[in-house]
């Protein structure tokens, strides 16, 4: 029963975690840009000329086009990858301190602050080579509860970022297209693709769909981890189904010898299996909830972390989908019941004398 509970706890933890991350992605990325236009070159994401914005702006339905400047920085000191973004905005709730108001300032994610041992008003020095380097005063640190979005971010002034990455003057990383009527986004994406065949428009619904796929329990992240415990359970159930102990066979033989019908034996075995599987299912579900929502899925962290130096602490919101609880119930309880009843039935229909002597 202990092993059974642990298997249920592992499977349920995984479903709780992926469901929570998926729901959170659905909730927050409905505010993601409606349309992002990337330029592709030789099959890779390349810098886009800011001049593309003018023609895109002339497409009916487009209200504005904004170049976005961002890039990746590999930090030799810590081995971490940071995402550098240039945005000039006034204020945000999830920042301790302020946001950069001009050149020479930055706001950093909690993960960056931790690995660089940096606090407010300290200096963050980034360097690609002797020519491309920048010293930024840390004026803000994103709060820990925003880490899932901001852990590796360094938000800085546009000029600092352009100089640091040595971006050509008339180039941006990609373009954000604001559309007046959301239902026109696919049409506008199609027109952009027609006017600029070297571009790749990404709509908000595609961003949301990506996260539906990544955190779908039947694929991607979940499937990779789901398959292990499920196979363990299959072996566990198979072992039970194929090998009844001599003691168990003898017990059935005695019950038959004292006058029990086959149906009575099956009822007994059904309720015995039900008692074990129900107890294990409830215990496993409770353990899973505590593991994921009180301890931040700590046991999964080493698997999920991979080679990432910056990994945000998980503090998932307990969005629970009853459908998934039923899935776990049917994947564990029903096979277990079947695996206890079938061998019992085989023993119960055999002559009691033969069963007891075997």
């Amino acid at each position, binding site marked *: 029963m202990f092993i059974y509970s642990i298997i249920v706890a592992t499977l349920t933890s995984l479903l709780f975690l992926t469901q929570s*991350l998926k729901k*959170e*992605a659905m*909730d*927050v990325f*409905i*505010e*993601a840009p409606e349309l*992002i236009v990337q330029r592709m070159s030789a*099959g*890779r*994401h390349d810098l886009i000329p800011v001049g593309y914005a003018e023609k895109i702006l002339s497409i009916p339905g487009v209200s504005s086009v904004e170049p976005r400047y961002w890039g*990746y920085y590999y930090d030799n000191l810590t081995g971490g*990858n940071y*995402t550098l*973004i240039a945005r000039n*905005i006034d204020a*945000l*709730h*999830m920042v301790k301190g302020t946001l950069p108001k001009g050149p020479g300032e930055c706001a950093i*994610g909690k993960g960056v602050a931790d690995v660089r041992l940096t606090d407010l008003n300290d200096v963050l020095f980034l360097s690609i080579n002797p020519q491309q380097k920048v010293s930024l005063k840390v004026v803000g640190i994103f709060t820990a509860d*925003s*880490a*899932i*979005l*901001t*852990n*590796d971010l360094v*938000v800085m002034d546009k000029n600092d970022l352009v100089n640091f990455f040595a971006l050509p003057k008339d180039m941006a990383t*990609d373009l*954000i297209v604001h559309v007046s009527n959301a239902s026109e986004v696919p049409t506008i994406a199609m027109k952009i693709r027609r006017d600029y065949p070297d571009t*790749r*428009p*990404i709509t908000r619904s*595609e*961003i949301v*769909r*990506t*996260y539906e796929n*990544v955190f779908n329990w039947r*694929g*991607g*992240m979940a499937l*990779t981890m789901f398959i292990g415990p499920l196979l363990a359970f299959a072996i566990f159930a198979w072992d039970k189904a194929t090998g009844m102990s001599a003691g168990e066979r003898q017990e059935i033989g005695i019950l038959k010898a004292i006058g029990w019908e086959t149906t009575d034996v099956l009822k007994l075995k059904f309720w015995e299996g039900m*008692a074990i599987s*129900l*107890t294990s299912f*409830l215990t496993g579900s*409770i353990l899973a*909830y505590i593991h994921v*929502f009180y301890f931040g899925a700590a046991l999964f962290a080493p698997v*999920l972390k*991979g*080679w*990432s*130096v*910056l*990994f*945000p602490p998980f503090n998932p*919101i307990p969005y629970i989908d009853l459908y998934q609880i039923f899935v776990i119930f049917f994947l564990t309880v029903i096979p277990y019941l079947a695996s206890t009843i079938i061998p019992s039935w085989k023993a119960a229909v055999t002559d009691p004398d033969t069963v007891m002597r075997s």
Partner: protein
Amino acid sequence: MIKSKIFFSFIAIEIIVIAFLYTDANHTIAARNAEVQSKRELVRKLSLTDFAVFTEARYTRHPSQADTFSAFQDFPSSMDHFPAGSIVGPQRGNN
């Protein structure tokens, strides 16, 4: 105490714990609604598109922005060598 009573008491306790956890879940969702609103503000104002969970490669850091074969494009017939590549599946449906 007979074993059936122990069993039923145990099941009853577990059901009470599950009811408590369910109530706790609903309470936590309501209590953390402000946090979700703040995250939406972050996404809107910083134009974010992805979770900062897997930072080891660009196609795992920004799965929604990467093309479907970026895991294998470092050189011809290169293998995907980041562990997170096995966890974050390729996106579907994008261009």
